[in-house]
């Protein structure tokens, strides 16, 4: 699986997306994550493993804890794609408006 595929798969799960949303607020521990999600710590750990393998989060060791955080630039590749889609569509259709006006004008010229 390439990077983009892994990221898409990891993000397919609503719990994992919610975990990412939580991590966007800052570094946190498995215990702190498990609480609002009403999940067991092993269940949260399994989700974190998927996110970590997809390169979306990083974890460090601090005593007995393994706090996790969003990986820098984790969503960059997908973000790039999305931003491009939105920007491209808007810019393209503004440009198409102009082209259609020109097509219309040249059609009228041709008729006169």
């Amino acid at each position, binding site marked *: 699986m390439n990077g983009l595929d892994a990221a898409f798969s990891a993000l397919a799960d609503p719990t994992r997306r919610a975990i990412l949303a939580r991590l966007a607020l800052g570094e946190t521990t498995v215990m702190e994550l498990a609480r609002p999600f009403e999940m067991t710590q092993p269940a949260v750990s399994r989700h974190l493993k998927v996110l970590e393998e997809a390169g979306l989060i990083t974890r460090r060791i601090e005593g007995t804890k393994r706090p996790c955080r969003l990986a820098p630039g984790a969503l960059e590749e997908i973000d790039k794609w999305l931003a491009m889609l939105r920007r491209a569509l808007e810019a*393209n259709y503004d440009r198409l408006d102009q082209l259609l006006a020109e097509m219309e004008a040249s059609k009228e010229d041709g008729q006169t």
Partner: protein
Amino acid sequence: MTKLTLTLEGDTHILATRRFKASPEAVYRAHTETELIQKWLLGPEGWTMPVCINEARSGGRIRYEWSDGKGGSLLLTGEYVALEPFGRIVHIERFHMPDPTPDNRIETRFEADGTGTLMIMRMTLPDSATRAAMLATGMEHGMEASYARLDAMSG
């Protein structure tokens, strides 16, 4: 009036609508004729499309290569599934980043709307996962939805 709208439908679709002040025939031609496509399907300001392969027939290939003139480039490939002049186009496309993005099947309809055209573009992603991923990473909208979900879960 001519503003682009993007909405969701079902689990795997994204719906885009846009009005144009031209006939369905003109809008359809602008979507299917190579020399017209190269004039508008360019993305951000400053980009051009030096390579535009567009075989406008069922099964025909699509290959668009964009350049920003400063070494930046972008590639899209795809295939036409069906063409019904001047009302409907179905094609499949993917960007290469360089890894290919999941196939996006796009049905584009052009309906007469007064003296203009209403374009209805329906994108179908391979599964809800892909679309969810698009939305989850959409930042303005996706992260907001995730936060809302998180709030609901915490409450």
